[in-house]
Structures are given as C-alpha cells and as structure tokens.
C-alpha cells in the first residue's frame, strides 16, 4: 500500500463520520433540499472533468472529458439553483404578512 492511498483512505473514512454527524442534525422538514443540495455537491466531479477536457489529452479522452463537464455542470448548476428555490419558500408565519 502506498502512502498517498493510505492518507486518502483516512480522509475518506473520517469524512464519512463528519457526514453522519452533520447530516443527522438536519430536520425532516429540510430533507428534500438536503437531497438536492448534497446532490449538487456530488457534482464536485466537475473538477476532474475540467482537467480531462482541457489537459491536452488525446481526442477520445477530451471528448469523454467534455461529456463529463456537461453532466457535472448540469448537476452542479441545477442542483444548487433548485435547492435555493426551495429554501426560499420556507418561511415563518410572521415573515409572510
């Protein structure tokens, strides 16, 4: 096992624990926005997609990268915007009038 992998594995396991801690505290009221918001976060693959599409690779790799950029961007842009749209609707009684 090389060291880079080991560190990554540590990071992965610890991040899962952080995720559990943070997300158990989200009330059922907000579970749909949580889902669409975390969905947008999973679009973080866009980072890898940008590198694949722009790193001057062979044509096939670039085209795969392009498709990945499209898919990940839909995920990121759509996910964050729709979450914002939903959260905007959640208001307390007195804010409405």
């Amino acid at each position: 096992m090389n060291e880079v992998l080991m560190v990554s594995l540590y990071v992965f396991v610890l991040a899962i624990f952080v995720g559990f801690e943070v997300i158990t505290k989200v009330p059922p009221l907000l579970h749909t926005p949580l889902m669409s918001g975390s969905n947008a976060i999973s679009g973080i693959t866009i980072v890898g997609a940008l590198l694949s599409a722009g790193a001057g690779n062979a044509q096939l790799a670039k085209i795969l990268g392009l498709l990945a950029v499209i898919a990940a961007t839909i995920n990121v842009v759509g996910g964050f915007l729709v979450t914002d749209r939903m959260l905007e609707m959640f208001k307390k009684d007195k804010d409405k009038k």
Partner: protein
Amino acid sequence: METITSLAYLLAAVLFIFGLKRLSSPKTARQGNLLAMTGMLIAIVVTLLDQSILDFTYIIIGLVIGGAIGLIAARMVEMTQMPQMVALFNGFGGVASALVAFSEYSAKSTMALGQENVIWLELFPANVSVTLVLSLLIGTVTFTGSLIAFAKLQGIMRGAPVTFPGQQWVNALILIVALGLGGFFVFDPTLMNFLMAIIVLAAILGVFSVIPIGGADMPVVISLLNSYSGLAAAATGFVLSNNMLIIAGALVGASGLILTNIMCKAMNRSLTNVLFAAVGTEGGSGTISAEERKNVTEYSAEDAAMVLDSAQSIIIVPGYGLAVAQAQHVLQELAEMFIDSGKSVRYAIHPVAGRMPGHMNVLLAEANVPYDILVEMDAINDDFQNTDVVLVIGANDVINPAARTDKDSPLYGMPILNVDKARSVMIIKRSLSPGFAGVDNRLFYDSKTMMLFGDAKKMVTELVREAKEL
C-alpha cells in the same frame, strides 16, 4: 501554485461541511446552500487556473451547455416533480464520475501504447486501477438505475415492479463477473476491452436492480442512488488522488445512507426487503367484515364546515393525494381562516408523505404554509388525543391503526400518525378503496369518523365556501 491549489480545495471542502451544517435549521439553510455554492465556485476557479489545462475550448462548450440545461431545469421544474429531477441529477453525477475515470484511463493508456506491461503497471498501480474499476462500476450503475427511477416517477414507465425468475441471481452473477473482470484488469491494465465489458455489465445491473422496485418504494431508491452518486465521486477522487473529491463524495454518500435508513424505518421495511421483495403488485386483503363496512358515516361539506367551525384544535394530515389534486393552496386558505378565528391549526407530516424524503414539506411551503406549523410525526403524535378534529386529505396507509394492532397486516409495525386517538376524524377521499399497500382501513368505519367523498380540491374549496358563510 500546487500548495495554493491544495489549500483552496481544502477551503472548498470546509465550506461544503459548513453548508450542510447550516441546513440544520430553516433559518440558516439558504445561507448554507450559498456557502456550499461558494465552495464549488472556488474549486472550479482554482482548477481552471491549473497549469495542466492547455485548451479551454471543450471546457467552455461543456460549461455553457451544462449550465444552460441546469439553469432551465432548476427554473422550470414543478415542486411535485422534484423526485424525478433529483433522480435524474443523481444519474448525471454518476455518469460524470464514470466518464472522468474512463477519460483518465484513456489519456494515460495513449501514452503507454505499445510499451511493455511494466510501464502500464507503473502508470496504473493497483490503487489506481482498483478505484478506476469501482468508479466505472458505481458511476454507471447510478446512471442507468437513476434513468429507470426517473422513467418510473415521470410515468414514462409503469410504476409496478417488473420481475423475472431468478432476477436476484442474475444480478449477483453480473456483479461477480464485473468484479472478476476488474480483478484481471488490475493485473493487466492493457485489457481495455475488460473495462468496456464492465461498463456494459454495470449498465445492465443498474437497470435490473431498479425495475423490480415498486412506485411506492421510490423514496428509498432515490436516497440510495443519491448515496451512490457520492460514492462514485469519492472513487473518482481516489483515481485522481484528489482528497477534496473524496471528502465531498463521502459527505454525500453518508447523507444518502442516512436518508435511506430513515425512509426504510418509516415504512418498517428493511433495505433488503425494499430492494428485492418487489412490493407494490396489485391485489389487496380484505380483513374487515361486511357488517363493519356498513357503518360509514358520510358528511356533506356544509355539515363538515360546521363541525370544523366549532372545533378549538385542528390537525391536518396531508398525503400525496393532496398534491396530486393540487389542493395545497386552497387547503392553506382554509387553514388560515381557522387560524384567524383563533383556532390551533397544525399539519402533521408523516416521513413518507410524498414521493421523496421531506417532499410534503416542500409542497406545503410552496403553498405558503409557514414551516412552524409543519410538525413531524414524533413531535405531534402525543397531541392527537387532545385534538378536536383531525382533517385527513389524501392519506391512507400512514393513518391505518392496523399497523399498531393487526399482526397479519402487511402494514404491521409501520409507525403511523395516531389519528384514531383524536376526538373526531374527518377524511376526504374519493372512495373507500385501499391505499398503496392494498390494505383496508378500519378507521373509515369508526363511529367518530366522518367521510367526505369527492375530489380533494373540490371538497376543500366547498369547505372554504361553507365556512365563509358561517
């Protein structure tokens, strides 16, 4: 430069965590989403400044196309369609991860073309090739599985389970073969055909594992696919040795798992049961005698409005039927009238009311229901006994007392709203037909239950009119 990039990625990961943390209250939630958005923006900008990017043509094309589609989708989608949209977006996340992984393989393998096997193994050490296979596998399963979930929710495909004999064995076999091919690939990374075969097998596996799942179980499936899309991103993070991807992917993976677990508990089913039991086929069970069935008390809107008017405390139990009838807005009009006349009015929300976790809350928030009168099941269940009238609209299985008492009922053990404990119950329903689980509901025939037969929207509109005249 590399240090700056790494630190920026770390900042992005921290912002994701803070963003999710702010989702713990509706007051800070919107701000939290903005934080996560900022994190994403930082990650993207820093990546674009990376020196290894030589050509921006494809990047710009991709960002423009993807951004436009995302923007339009987010603006146009109806709140009732959120489950489909999230399902579809999960799929995009999955396929993006798989594409990145394959592109990485393709780029490196072009460099090694015609070289000795040793060179290949140097380019693809075991940790890279293992995670590469996992990323392709999870990403592709998420993609095709999500497409099927989308088709079922959108009504393109029938919601009923599609099964064939030996389905689970076929699925297990596909998975084993795919993993076996992956094993060979790890020892010989020149085997590109094996990777292709893994993608095809994963695509089939995604389809086969979602088609047997019934429409009512979709909330669980979307949550699970949500988790997969995170895990696919994390696997891609391992391929690229990028810790930020790993952190973000792990957060989403954990989130999806928690939601999956909550949904399973709310239906009193195990995950294995949801995934493999193909529940949702036609046919019901009638355990209630004809004698008992006669005791239905039917009320008119006029009488019902009078009963509601004389009540002090009212709890409204909305089900998905309410959203299907588009009756949320007029219902809130009714609720506001009662609130203004000094009554206590609250909504009781069962975890599976709706088509995805928390869906009913969003639908009601859209109808301007303030979130402080949306109360979750555990917080309101003890209050039913002190409530004058419970108004049930479009809900059935989640209020069926058989879940508490009848050991033979398929609903037995499922947590329900204690509607039957209230002083009186008013149920708006088209007919006496059973709900999703196909189980008859004894509460319909109870002496304290008033049945209002008709379309939810029409009936509530009539109630509003009658109540105004009082």
